[in-house]
């Protein structure tokens, strides 16, 4: 069925190796069921290179053995040729040809496997090279970024990002590299597109602001209550607005008062003294100016007040709402606290109840223990009484025995008495029949009377 195998004498003198082509194309796994598993093989794990070595090992083994046979055949052909054994020579040459073809087949397979190994190693070397290049590139990029970021940090700058100054960093047109790759025995080269990245460093000051974004963000370790912050800000703004408005009003009032005072003083002076016409004209003009100024100031103040009052009202409203909310929350909190207090009280009561129940249980346990002790005592007492009863019963039995003995004795005595009575009767009858001569008298009716001595 199989071609002649060859012994692996170095490993196992009984192991005979066959060419793998002898195996049928389709095989059916016949399994034995072991628990939940269906088992038809044992397995071991190897690194991939050892799998290749196993493939090579088989072919090398056959190639070596075939070489030995070829040498032998060649020698035989030589002998046959020297001795003119044509037919044997022809047969041996045929065998030799067959053997050489078989060997060549194995040698070809060895060459293919070794070639594939070589290509795989080259591929690995190339991949390692690419990886090294990538690592180097990443290192350089990091170095460049660090250099770019240093001055940015120091100056806190203010360079605006500009499209003109953006560095040309990125993927350029992919370069096609023909890379041989080992895949399922396909030894044809596979085209791998490897992106080539070019870096054009720019002057430091022209660095784009985006680079700063890559800096690690500042970690805010302390949490901030934004609501509280907002409230604080609102309060400050509100206060400032109020203060400002009040100040403005106050200033305006003071100015108006001083203007009025000044006017009054001027009028008084005018009234108290004779003034020239030009001064009257100036006074009139001043009056007009004052009135005009007063109306402007009033209007300004009014507008300002309106402008301030509206947001203030809104803020007041918000404040009022917030206060209301706070009040509500406070009330809720108070309720919750009351509930908690109630619950605590309830818990306290329950604890007390529990304590009382525990005490009751303890008392009951004690009572139960006492009862158990009593039961034990009673049991012991019963035991003693049982013993007494047993002894009494034994005594009774003994007495019954004695009574029975006495009864027997009485019966015996009765029997004796009976016997004696019978004897007595016999004696009596004997005495009755006995008639002493002297003492015997016949009665008138002829009866005889015995006279007692």
């Amino acid at each position, binding site marked *: 069925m199989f071609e002649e195998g060859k012994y692996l004498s170095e490993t196992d003198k009984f192991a005979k190796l066959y060419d793998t082509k002898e195996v049928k194309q389709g095989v*059916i796994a016949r399994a034995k069921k072991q628990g939940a598993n269906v088992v038809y093989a044992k397995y071991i794990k190897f690194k991939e290179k050892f799998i290749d070595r196993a493939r090579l090992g088989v072919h090398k083994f056959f190639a070596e053995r075939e070489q030995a046979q070829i040498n032998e055949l060649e020698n035989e052909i030589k002998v046959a040729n020297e001795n003119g054994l044509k037919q044997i020579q022809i047969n041996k040459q045929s065998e030799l040809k067959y053997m050489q073809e078989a060997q060549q087949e194995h040698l070809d397979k060895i060459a293919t496997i070794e070639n594939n190994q070589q290509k795989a190693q080259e591929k690995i070397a190339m991949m390692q090279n690419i990886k090294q290049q990538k690592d180097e590139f990443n290192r350089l990029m990091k170095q460049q970024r660090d250099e770019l970021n240093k001055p940015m940090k120091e100056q806190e700058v203010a360079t605006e990002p500009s499209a003109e100054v953006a560095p040309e960093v990125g993927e350029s047109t992919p370069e096609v590299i023909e890379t041989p790759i080992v895949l399922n025995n396909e030894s044809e080269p596979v085209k791998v597109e490897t992106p080539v990245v070019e870096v054009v460093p720019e002057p430091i000051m022209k660095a784009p602001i985006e680079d700063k974004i890559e800096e690690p963000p500042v970690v805010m370790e302390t949490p901030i209550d934004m609501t509280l912050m907002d409230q604080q800000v609102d309060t400050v703004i509100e206060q400032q607005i109020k203060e400002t408005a009040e100040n403005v009003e106050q200033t305006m009032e003071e100015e108006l008062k001083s203007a009025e005072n000044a006017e009054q003083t001027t009028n008084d002076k005018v009234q108290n003294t004779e003034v020239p016409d030009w001064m009257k004209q100036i006074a009139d003009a001043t009056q007009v100016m004052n009135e005009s100024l007063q109306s402007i100031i009033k209007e300004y103040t009014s507008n300002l007040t309106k402008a301030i009052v509206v947001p203030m009202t809104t803020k007041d409203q918000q404040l009022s709402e917030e206060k209301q909310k706070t009040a509500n929350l406070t009330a809720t909190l108070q309720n919750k606290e009351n509930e908690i207090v109630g619950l605590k009280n309830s818990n306290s009561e329950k604890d007390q109840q529990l304590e009382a129940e525990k005490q009751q249980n303890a008392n009951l346990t004690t009572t139960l223990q006492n009862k158990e002790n009593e039961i034990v005592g009673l049991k012991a007492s019963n035991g003693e009484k049982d013993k007494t009863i047993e002894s009494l019963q034994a005594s009774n039995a003994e007495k019954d025995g004695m009574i029975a003995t006495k009864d027997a004795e009485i019966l015996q005595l009765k029997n004796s008495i009976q016997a004696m009575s019978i004897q007595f009767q016999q004696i009596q009858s004997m005495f009755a029949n006995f008639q002493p001569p002297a003492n015997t008298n016949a009665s008138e009716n002829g009866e005889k009377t015995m006279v007692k001595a």
Partner: protein
Amino acid sequence: MPEKKIITVVTPEGEEIEAEVLIFFELTDLGKKYLVYTHHEKDKNGMETVCASTYVEEDGKAYIEEIATEEEWDRIKDVMRGVIKNGGDE
């Protein structure tokens, strides 16, 4: 001619799985033949699983079965080591 011998294994569940035969040999003292083959399954460490089964031909059909004893399995591993050793100098 391909340097690999690829066969189809029909599992007990009826599934057909390809396998590459690495070593085919006989232990003549036991009168049993064995297949060493791989489904090219790798674990997370990149190690490839290599299986071994008893090889039987009956009525023109080929079957693989479990290795019967641990002694057989040890000898199969020895054969594997011998072949691998023959395949490389490392």
